[in-house]
C-alpha cells in the first residue's frame, strides 16, 4: 500500500500508534489521516490480507478461484472492483 502507509495494525500486537491505518482482525479499518472508517467483509479481509503480504495479483486471483469456486474472469473482475474501492477510499 502506498500513500498513507497501510502497514495495518495487528490488534494482538503492540498498542496502535495512531500513525498508520488501523485494521483489526474483524476487518474494521480506520484511516487516521482522513478520519474515515470502513468495515470489510470476510472476503475483502481475506484479499486484503494477501495484498498486505505482498502476494501477486495473479496469485490472488488463483486463490479466489480455489476458495470461492468462481471462474478466473469473475475472480479478476471482483478483485479489480475491490482494488478500485480501496483506491477510492485513499487506501491504495
Amino acid at each position, binding site marked *: 500500500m502506498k500513500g498513507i502507509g497501510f502497514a495495518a495494525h495487528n490488534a494482538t500486537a503492540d498498542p496502535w500508534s*495512531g500513525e498508520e491505518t488501523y485494521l483489526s482482525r474483524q476487518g474494521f479499518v480506520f484511516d487516521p489521516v482522513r478520519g474515515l472508517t470502513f468495515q470489510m467483509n470476510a472476503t475483502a479481509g481475506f484479499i486484503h490480507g494477501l495484498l498486505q503480504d505482498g502476494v501477486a495479483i495473479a496469485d490472488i486471483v488463483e486463490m479466489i478461484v480455489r476458495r470461492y469456486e468462481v471462474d478466473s474472469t469473475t475472480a479478476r473482475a471482483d478483485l479489480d472492483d475491490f482494488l478500485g474501492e480501496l483506491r477510492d477510499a485513499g487506501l491504495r
Partner: protein
Amino acid sequence: MITVAVTGLNATDNPAPGTGVIRSLREEMDCRVVGLAYDALDTAAYDSDLVDEVHLLPYPSAGQGAVLERLLQISERTPIDALIPTLDSELSNFVRLAPELERHGIRTLLPDLDALRMASKLELYNFCRRNGLRSPSTVVLQNQAQLGSLPFAFPIAIKGVFHGAEIAHSLDEAVLAYEKVRSRWGAPLLAQQYVGGEEYDVLMLGDHQGAPVGCVPMRKLGITDKGKAWAGVTVRDPRLHEESLEIFRALRWRGPLELEFVREERTGKYHLIEINPRFPAWCYLSVGAGQNLPATLARLVLGEDVAPLPEARAGVTFVRHAVDLICPLEHLERLVTMGSLIHNGGNLHAAHA
C-alpha cells in the same frame, strides 16, 4: 486551591463549550469551579459535579461596566484566580476588561482585539486572501437584494456573524435562508461560496506570546441539524496540521481557538470556512487525545511555563450524550431570585447577601 470561573454553561442542542471546559479542568486540576451563567436555565448550573457555585452575569449587551461590576462582586465573595470565557458574543467585552480584571487578581489569556477582528466571520475572507490561505469567497450582506448579484454560483451558505448558517441552492432558497438567519441572529449576514466535502475542525491553543502549544484535529462523524458535531474522531494529517499552524502564526493567537475546514471532495484541499475564537463544545476530546487544552490554558493563565504538547493521538472518538439532571425547585429559585447558587462548600447565606 485555585478558583477558575467559566462561562458558557448552556448545553442544549447547540451546546456552549463550558461543560467540556470544566470536565477537562476536573480531569487534571484540583480547583474550585465558579460557573458564570446568563440565564437561570443554563443547564450546567444544576450539575454539582461540574460547578461548585454558579452566578448569573448580565448579558454582554449590558456593557463592560455592568459585567465588570458583577464579576468583582462575585470575586469578592469567592476570589477568582482565572477566568475562561467560552462564548463569541462576550469575548470583546472580556478582552477590553482584561487589564482591569487582572488588577483585581482575575487572570485571563485572550487574543488582542486586532486578532479577534481578523478571525471574525466578517473579516475572515480578507484575512485569508492577505495571507494566501484557502477560504471560500465570502460577501458581507447588508441587505437581501445583494443575493441577486453574488460573484459566485449556488449553492451558497448564508451565515450570521456569530451564529446560524443555512445552505441555499437557489436564489429563492437564499432569500428564505437570509430571512431565517437574520430574524434569529440579526444583520449583517454573510454569503459564502459552498464547498462540498467532509468537515474537519482543529482546536488550537496559543501561549502568552501567541505561539501554539497544542493542536487537536478532528473529523466530524455525526452532525445535528444545526451543524453541530455530535460525534467525532481525532485525525493525524500532516497537511491539515501544517495549514492550521500557518493560520495560527498569521493570527499570533493567545488562548484557544477552533479552525473549521472543509476538505474539498474533488481536490482533497482544505478550505478554511470559519474561525471560532474560543474553545469548541467538543474540547473534552482533547483530554482523550492526550492534550488537555482547557487545563493547559488554566496553567498558562496562572503563569506556568508550558512547552508545546506532544502530538495529539489519532483515532480517539467522542459521542455526545444527553442526560436529564434532577434538581430541587429551590436551586432554580435561588438562581432566579438571588442570581447565585452554591452547590459545594460555600456559604449559602453569604451568597445571598
